[in-house]
């Protein structure tokens, strides 16, 4: 690891404030929506928003204090939430995973899984093509046998399965 990789992408304090802020907003949304459906006492008992209203209040209260404390916390201002090197690794996982999840619908789960595993083996593991293809296809075939054949759970399928008449 060189120095570049050790540099923080964000400090703990920044993240602490951002997350508390987002949760505060969530609390506010809960409060407003509860007021919309009614957070009071009606003739027939508590209205739909009666309970969530207080839930929202508590979210806002607790996150406001967390945020206030983080603003004055010097120790956290100097601490890295995630370093550049670690962040790159996390993105290496997160971006392909998002693409994978997005691919499931158009091409089906099994094809998407095969591509996903193959991508990881090539890029992170640097395996030769043959090993990559054998393992990636093998894993998907095992999953197919397990879920479609043994447990009879239909998973999303795409054009390949339609062409092979497997669905």
């Amino acid at each position, binding site marked *: 690891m060189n120095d570049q990789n050790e540099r923080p992408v964000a400090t703990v304090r920044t*993240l*602490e404030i951002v*997350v*508390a802020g987002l*949760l505060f907003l*969530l*609390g506010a*949304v*809960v409060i407003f*929506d*509860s007021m919309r*459906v*009614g957070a009071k*006492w009606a003739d027939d*008992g*508590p*209205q*739909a*928003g*009666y*309970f*969530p209203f207080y*839930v*929202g209040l*508590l*979210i806002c209260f*607790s*996150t406001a*204090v*967390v945020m206030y404390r983080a603003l004055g916390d010097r120790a956290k201002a100097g601490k890295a*939430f*995630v370093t550049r090197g*670690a962040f790159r*690794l*996390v993105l*290496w*996982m*997160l971006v*392909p*995973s998002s693409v*994978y*999840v997005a691919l*499931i*619908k158009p091409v089906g*789960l099994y094809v998407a*899984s095969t591509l*996903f*595993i193959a*991508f*990881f083996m090539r*890029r*992170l*593991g640097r395996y030769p093509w043959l090993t990559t293809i054998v393992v990636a296809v093998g*894993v998907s075939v095992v*999953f197919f046998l397990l*879920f479609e054949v043994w447990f009879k*759970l*239909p*998973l*999303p399928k795409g054009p390949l399965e339609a062409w092979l008449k497997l669905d």
Partner: protein
Amino acid sequence: MEEITSLLNGFSVALTPFNLMLMFVGVVLGVIIGVLPGLGGANGVAILLPLTFTMPPTSAIIMLSCIYWGALFGGAITSILFNIPGEPWSVATTFDGFPLGQKGRAGSALTAAFTSSFIGALVAVIMITFLSPVVAKFALAFGPPEFFAVYLLTFCAFVGMSKGQALKTIASMMVGFALAAVGLDTVTGSLRLTFGFTELLQGFDFLIAVIGLFGIGEILLTLEEGLAFKGASARINVKVVVETWRELPRYWLTSLRSSAVGCFMGIVPGGATPASFMAYGVAKRFSRDGEKFGTGQVEGVVAPETAAHAAGTSALLPMLTLGVPGSPTAAVLLGGLLIWGLQPGPLLFQEQKEFVWGLIASMYLGNIAGLIVVLTCVPLFAAILRIPFSIIAPAIIVICAIGAYTVHNSMFDVYLMLVFGIAGYVLRKLDYPLAPLVLALVLGDRAESAFRQAMLASQGDMSIFFSNALVGGMTTLALVLLFWPLVQTVLRKAKAA
């Protein structure tokens, strides 16, 4: 002894060849789940839950609870061999387990860990056998105010026991309640927090949240820590097992204390993780070799493992008798009961005797099965960890995606899982505890309806929560726990001044 007869009946339910097979399958799957990063007890059970929808409920819960026992056993393997806790509750096991492994005594450490786990679980199961019918009978008289007080107590206990993170515990818990409120309100028929999205009509399913928060979130965290599995090799032979078993009776007092800590922490929702740390601390203080702890003492493995397993097991007691799970995994099992059409709570002991006692009997059998499996198959499980990360990581994500999809056969859930995963990663890094969020998400609707019914009965008068000694006592205790962190801070400041 009515319990003994019921238990014997339970054994006759659990001891069918099919159920025995499920037990072994469950334990093996559980150990694998416990060993792999990114898969743990809670989300492992959540992913496999849809596979059991078609099974009879008794067989289904036997398999799922055995997965849980397996995961509890499995966490110790990675702690001792690789210094990587496979599960949060086995962090304390690394303190002495890994040094033992480095000294070439991995076999003894593993035997001690597995045996202690077994003993901790056994003590907890015996307690469940005799205590749960009593609690259930007692709880039969509960009305909505009492039930709400129990929920309140559960959630306030989380706050009271959170170390210095009381506000974050509250925030995370309330987010859980807010997520639980999303969707159609069954009482008034109005839509809450859906903002016109039809996908949100059904609300958030906690299974998706569990798979995302604990599965995807965990993978991201593991990745960041960097994965290098370099560890002691594991060989357990009969000689090592017998030798270790000869040594273990020396630590009977530690076992007893740790079991007590574990049972207590499991029933109040402290959970296995704090129980294991607490038991390690207690053992260190009281042991004659206390100062040697951390250098590879067998006693230092016995204490946390006994407590973790005792806590993990006894978390099922409030789940079965009151419908209040003591841990995220117990919460997932509770979700399973609801899906199979069983209402957890005191009535379960009256109406579903076969199910309840079959489950309790299976806890005895499942832990015996677990002990056999882990003692004989350690090298096999350790080998799983040698599968390169670039294969195992995408495979785990695929499994999580399949698990999320099969809950409702909906792609929306898979997208949601990824969002929960990112949230779980960030929240965990900022020390927001996730267990209260999951528990609130599971119990939100039930807690709210208990609250509403109590309020209806009293016409909005909060004093109903103090209307008799029982409910008043529970509410008071809950409030004390809720404000305990505040009291502590004030006391500390007063002392410093």
